[in-house]
Every structure is written in structure tokens, then in C-alpha cells.
């Protein structure tokens, strides 16, 4: 019988801070050829569990109890040399941001030769041949070219495939995958999952797959473990957990990960989109390398955003979505075309800048870590001739409007959660009374529960203030949940613009079809139905 990876009663503490442990009695077992999903909100201890297994806990944290065994080997007490052999050799690891895990100065092939040398003893041309073989195995169409390329030349999906090749190079028995697809769109997520599934079938790879999105792994996982605040709150076969979640936390995670569509038509949404345009783009183009024959980042996009409308902008990373947003915001200057906002001219003036506001993807990066939230929120009001009391009043009102406690205003960003900061970003935008709010992947860094609350907040603001929203996202569920119309960007061009209902039932463009197909839960598991049955 082959070895199992067994974690028993694992407890991890912060050595500097006595008190409640960060991980409390976590127990799990991964058999060869098994696909186990470890699910939980951010901060629930999923990543910490994986890091404990590999002996890679950050400084200051230590395993204070329990055991981690790989077959007969105890990993909590293993020495450096032994752990080095195990990492990569017997347990591989996939990370969330593959590009950050590659050395930008080294070609992919050279990255791959390293584990091949360490764990398989291959050198020179033999190693290079094997590296190319591995790349072919993970789905590179031209593996030889892939091996020659540098990390920055790969797309996000390809980089994650290369990472998978790297993790599998040492022929490990187990793979720890820490949100490897959270930053990818659904099509790529599906491909990576299929790739891992294939490895598990072919050679009995045991997989521990960490994610905050229960629905995305439902089709592949044999078992699901749910973590909350450092403890396992539920475990069982996938079907059982999905059909009859025992803990309320699992249930809320599940509900949050399945966004029921009810924003598909304006009638259903209770708001009649006015035909008047809040924002209109005419033939907008932008290219970043004018001298080379590079493809334009945004290529002749014409688009109209109606007042009070929620428009979804879909597209792969690099398709020009974010550049389009930056052009509208006046952060970049268009090479050609015009951007017009209702009530203002076409020039990029300060007043125009204020009428369109932005919510960023990364909540912790959108605030200066040195400033309190109050100082950050005061910044946009500095030009206005308000008295201190009026200013404070406005800030409080905005903070309350987005559902934050005004006491948080005296906190610094790192004392707040991602969800709180995202609310604060929205409050900061609202202070300027914008007409249009652009959300650039505003919820993709958040766990499913928080994502849901932020989306609901945005819907409420759209209803109450008559805001027009642009949701830039790769998450089809967000689009289905929020948007009335969908625009699809592909290689800098707008390839499709349709009502959400029409888009999902009859996508026109080839790329749209791929996006829609990948977003449908497979293997006959229709999650929505399962949950409503459980209710």
C-alpha cells in the first residue's frame, strides 16, 4: 500500500502572542489518488495548514502540537535535509501567483531542470528533454518554445501550467495546491483542474486543493474539508457536504459561492435603465509600444453605458479591460477616440475625473499603510470649501452608508479586514458624488462570503443613488448576479455586447462561448438545485 499524507491534531501558535492557537487540532488525511478540497474564508488557516506540512511556516509561528506524517515519516520533527528531499520530491506545491514564484531572469526550462537534477538526477540534454516532455504533458502546444521563454512571456494560465510542470517534475506523490486558480478566469481554472485530475488518474497523485470557492472544485473533489478560524468544522464526501451541509458556516459559504442570477434584466431589478448615456466611448484606442508593431492594448472600442445600468466587462487577463478603465478615469491618455461623460466635456478635466470613480482589486494596496482611514478619506474633500465639521459629517455619512462602523476611521489599513477596506474604498469614491463607479475585479481578492456582501452593497448603491456600475471581472457568477448587460473584451477589442440573459443563452463570439461553457457546473452536479433542496 502506498503512503498516505496524514495530519493529526495539528496545532500552530504565534510564539510571540500566547492565547488562542492559529490552527487548533486540524486533522486530515489524503490517500494516493485522492482529490481533497480544503475550503474556507480568508484567514481560516488553509494556507497555514499547507505551509505546516512543508515546514515552511513564517517566522514566529511554530507547530506546538499534533503530527504530520507522510507514510512513516514524521514531518514536524524532520531535519532540513530530509525536508528538502520531501519538498518537491514527494510533496509538490502549487501557488496562487505563479509568476511571482518564478525567477524573472531565468527561462522556464532552467527552472524545470533544477528539480529534475535534485530529485531525478538528470543533467544536461537529458534534463532539457525531460523538461520539454513535462511542458508537453501540462498542455503546452509548443513545449520547446515554452522551455525557452521567460516567465513574463507566459500568460497567467500558461504560467500556472508551467508551475504545475515544476511541481510535478520531481514526480511527487502528493500535491498541495494553494488557490492556484483564484487569479485566473473560469476557462483557465477548468483547464488546470482537469490537468490535475488527469495526473491523479494516471499515476495516483494525491491532491490537497485549497480554495475559497467551494463551487469551483465541486466537480473534481472526492472529499471536502471546511475550515473556520483555524478549526475543521466539517468534512465528508463532496456530494454529502454540498447536499446536506451540517455546519452553518459551510452553508453560508455554499450560498455565497452560488450567486443566484437576479440582475439579468432591468425589470427584474426594479430599476428601468434610462436610455440616456452616463458614459460613452467612441473608437477609443491605446497602444503602449508605438514604435514596435505591437498589438494595441485597447483597439477602437465604442461603448455606451446607460444611466443606472450595471455593465459587466469580461475578458481574459491582458484583454485590455483594465486599460480601458484607466482610459476612462483619465489615468492614461487615449491615442485615438473620445471618452464623454454625461454633463461634462470630452476633455480630461478634474471634474470629469471625479464623476467616474474606481474600486480597486487589492484592498490593502488602495490605502496608504501609514495613514488612518480618516486621513485617506479626507483627501478627496481637501479641495472643497467645507468646514472641518461639515467634512467630518460627510465622511461619517459615507462610511455609514457603506455599512462601516465610524470608529474604524481611526484605524490604519492593516488593522482592518479586506472586506472593510473594500467598503472604505467605496465610501471614498462616494464622497465625490460620482455618476459612474468602475469596479476593477473589486471582489476577486475576497472570500466568497465577503464578496457577496460587497456585491449586495454595490447593488444597493446602484438602486438608491442611481449609480452606473461597470464590473470588470473574470467571474461569470458575478456577472450573472449583478449585470444587465455584458461586454466581452478579447485582445483589446470589444467582441460582444449583449443583455446578460441573451449572452448566457446564446453567446455569439467564440471566446464568449468558451467563457460561458466553462462557467456551467459539470458532472451533473447542479449546485443551485442541491442547495435549494437542502433548504
Amino acid at each position, binding site marked *: 500500500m502506498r503512503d498516505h499524507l496524514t495530519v493529526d491534531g495539528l496545532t500552530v501558535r504565534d510564539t510571540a502572542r500566547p492565547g488562542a492557537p492559529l490552527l487548533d487540532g486540524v486533522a486530515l488525511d489524503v490517500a494516493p489518488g485522492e482529490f481533497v478540497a480544503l475550503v474556507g474564508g480568508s484567514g481560516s488557516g488553509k494556507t497555514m495548514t499547507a505551509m505546516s506540512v512543508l515546514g515552511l511556516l513564517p517566522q514566529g509561528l511554530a507547530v506546538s502540537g499534533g503530527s504530520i506524517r507522510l507514510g512513516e515519516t514524521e514531518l514536524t520533527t524532520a531535519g532540513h535535509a530530509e525536508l528538502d528531499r520531501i519538498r518537491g520530491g514527494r510533496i509538490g506545491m502549487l501557488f496562487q501567483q505563479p509568476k511571482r514564484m518564478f525567477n524573472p531572469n531565468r527561462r522556464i526550462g532552467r527552472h524545470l531542470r533544477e528539480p529534475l537534477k535534485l530529485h531525478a538526477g538528470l543533467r544536461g540534454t537529458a534534463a532539457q528533454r525531460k523538461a520539454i516532455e513535462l511542458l508537453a504533458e501540462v498542455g503546452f502546444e509548443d513545449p520547446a518554445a515554452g522551455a525557452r521563454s521567460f516567465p513574463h512571456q507566459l500568460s497567467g494560465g500558461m504560467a500556472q501550467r508551467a508551475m504545475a510542470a515544476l511541481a510535478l517534475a520531481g514526480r511527487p506523490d502528493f500535491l498541495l495546491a494553494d488557490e492556484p486558480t483564484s487569479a485566473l478566469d473560469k476557462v483557465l481554472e477548468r483547464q488546470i483542474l482537469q490537468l490535475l485530475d488527469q495526473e491523479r488518474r494516471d499515476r495516483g497523485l494525491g491532491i490537497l486543493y485549497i480554495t475559497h470557492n467551494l463551487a469551483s472544485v465541486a466537480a473534481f473533489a472526492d472529499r471536502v474539508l471546511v475550515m473556520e478560524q483555524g478549526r475543521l468544522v466539517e468534512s465528508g464526501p463532496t456530494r454529502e457536504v454540498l447536499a446536506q451541509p451540517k455546519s452553518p458556516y459551510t452553508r453560508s459559504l455554499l450560498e455565497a459561492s452560488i450567486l443566484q442570477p437576479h440582475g439579468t434584466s432591468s425589470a427584474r431589478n426594479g430599476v428601468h435603465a434610462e436610455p440616456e448615456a452616463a458614459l460613452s466611448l467612441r473608437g477609443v484606442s491605446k497602444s503602449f509600444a508605438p514604435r514596435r508593431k505591437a498589438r494595441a492594448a485597447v483597439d477602437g472600442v465604442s461603448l455606451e453605458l446607460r444611466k443606472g445600468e450595471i455593465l459587466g466587462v469580461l475578458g481574459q487577463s491582458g484583454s485590455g479591460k483594465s486599460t480601458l478603465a484607466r482610459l476612462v478615469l483619465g*489615468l492614461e491618455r487615449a491615442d485615438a477616440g473620445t471618452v464623454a461623460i454625461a454633463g461634462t466635456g470630452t476633455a480630461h478635466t478634474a471634474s470629469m475625473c471625479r464623476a467616474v*470613480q474606481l474600486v480597486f482589486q487589492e484592498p490593502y494596496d488602495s490605502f496608504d499603510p501609514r495613514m488612518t482611514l480618516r486621513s485617506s478619506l479626507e*483627501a*478627496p474633500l481637501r479641495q472643497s470649501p467645507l468646514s472641518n465639521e461639515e467634512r467630518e459629517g460627510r465622511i461619517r455619512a459615507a462610511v455609514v452608508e457603506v455599512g462601516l462602523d465610524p470608529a474604524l476611521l481611526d484605524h490604519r489599513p*492593516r488593522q482592518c479586514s479586506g472586506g472593510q477596506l473594500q467598503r472604505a474604498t467605496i465610501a471614498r469614491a462616494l464622497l465625490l458624488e460620482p455618476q459612474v463607479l468602475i469596479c476593477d475585479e473589486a471582489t476577486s481578492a475576497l472570500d466568497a462570503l465577503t464578496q457577496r456582501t460587497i456585491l449586495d452593497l454595490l447593488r444597493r448603491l446602484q438602486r438608491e443613488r442611481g449609480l452606473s456600475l461597470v464590473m470588470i471581472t473574470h467571474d461569470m457568477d458575478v456577472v450573472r448576479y449583478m449585470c444587465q448587460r455584458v461586454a466581452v473584451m478579447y485582445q483589446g477589442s470589444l467582441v460582444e455586447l449583449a443583455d446578460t440573459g441573451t449572452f448566457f443563452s446564446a453567446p455569439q463570439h467564440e471566446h464568449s462561448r468558451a467563457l460561458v461553457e466553462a462557467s456551467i457546473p459539470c458532472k451533473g452536479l447542479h449546485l443551485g438545485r442541491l442547495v435549494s433542496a437542502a433548504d
Partner: protein
Amino acid sequence: MCNVRTRITADRAALAVLAVVVLAVAAAPWIAPYAPEAQDLARRLAPPGPEHWLGTDHLGRDLLSRLLDGGRFSMLMAVAATVLTAVLGTAVGVASARRRGWLDEFLTRSNDVLLALPEMVVALFIVAAMGTGFGPLLIALTVTGWTPFARLARTLAYDVSARGFVEAARVVGCPPSFIVFRHILPHLAAPMLGQATLRFGQLLISVGALSYLGLGVQPPQSDWGSMLAAAQPYAERAPMGIIAPGLAIFLVALCVTLIGQHATAAARTKQEAVAHA
């Protein structure tokens, strides 16, 4: 990396020594046993003793009094040059990073050119052209001294400018001055301070070197460098004339550098804590 306790002890000792030296030098007119120019030709090149603690020089002047008096010029010069170069360098670096384009290109290339020229040779040239004294010497040290600050400030300002909160500030319509003063400079402060303390030590030595070469203060005023130069011919008969000012330069430079390293390390730790929290 040496262990934490040694480091903290070293820092405290450095701070204590520096405090004593600064106080003594500042209070020189009141605590010095003799006037720095008072000659006692009967007691030339006297060894250390109860009357003259460090002995006397070739004109019979009290070495301790001259050491205290000379420290004022050396340290004041080094402080002034450090502050001036730090402010100038930071301004140039931030301007480069914010304006980009031809200005950045021009400032960076000028920086490279100045880095290629030996600091001492440029200083010699300027002093030769402008004459000696506090002003010309300060200019001589500043002309090349700003370059390390500008390099550091430019790199850091580039990094901070790329952060999301700077973009966020632009989106809500904050003027560039607000972004520079409220977002960028506070993030630069700690590393620039660390750099400044490291540079202070080097500048103190440069001041000494220029004075040693006769390009700094002119007699009868003295500083540590010129004292060294004056005592050199009598090194065998009265070694204290060299040891005392040499040791003073060495000690102050060492103390400030140690404190600077500690400050830089502390700032880095704090920034990491902010980044990881």
C-alpha cells in the same frame, strides 16, 4: 548578522559616546581649560600631564582646548553638508521619479557623470576655484554629495508611485503636491534618514581630509583635519598631536554610522511589519 544583544549594546554605547562628544564640543568655550589660540612657547610639544591633559602642540597650545574648538567646525560642516545633500538629493530623486521623461533622463545621467568623478578631486577643484572657507567647502562637498541620496530617493519614489494608494489618490483628484508630501515623502523618510547617518560619517572624514590638505579652515582657526596636518612633522616627539584628532574623527564617524545602521534596520523591520500585516 551578529546577535541582537551585542547590537543593542553597541548602539547604546555609540549613542552615549556621541552625546558626550557633541555636548563637550558645543560647550567648548566654557569648559575648555585654555583659549584655543593661547600660545605657551616655553611648553612646546609637552606630553600629556596634569596641566595639559592631552599635552601641547608645536606652538605650545593646549591640545584638548584645540580639539574641542576644532570639533565645532568639523561637525558643523559635516552636519550642514549632510542636511544639504539629503534635501537636495531627495528633491532631485523625487522630481526624477514623478516627472519621468527627459527630466528624469537628464538628472539620472548627471548623477552618473558625477558618480564617475572622484569626490575629492571635484572638491579640490571647487575649493581651488572659489577659495577656502565654510561656504566654498560646503559647496564642494554638496556638488558630488547629493548623488547617493538622489539614487535612493528616485528608486523608492518609483516604487511608492506604483502602489495602489497613489493611483487611488489620483483617481479622487488629489493634486500632485498632496501625493508627494503626504504619500511619497513619509514613505521615504526612514530610509533617507538611515542613508543620511551613513553619509555623515563619510562627510566628516572628507572634511578632515580637505582640511588636512589645507583646503578647509585657515589658521589660526582649526579643525580636526588641520590639527592632524600641523602635528605630522612632530609625530615622533609628540604622538598625541596626531592620535587625539585622528581618534576624534574616527570615533564620531563610527558612532554615527552605527546608529545609522541601527536606524535603517529598525525602519526596514517596521516597513516589513506594515507590509506583512
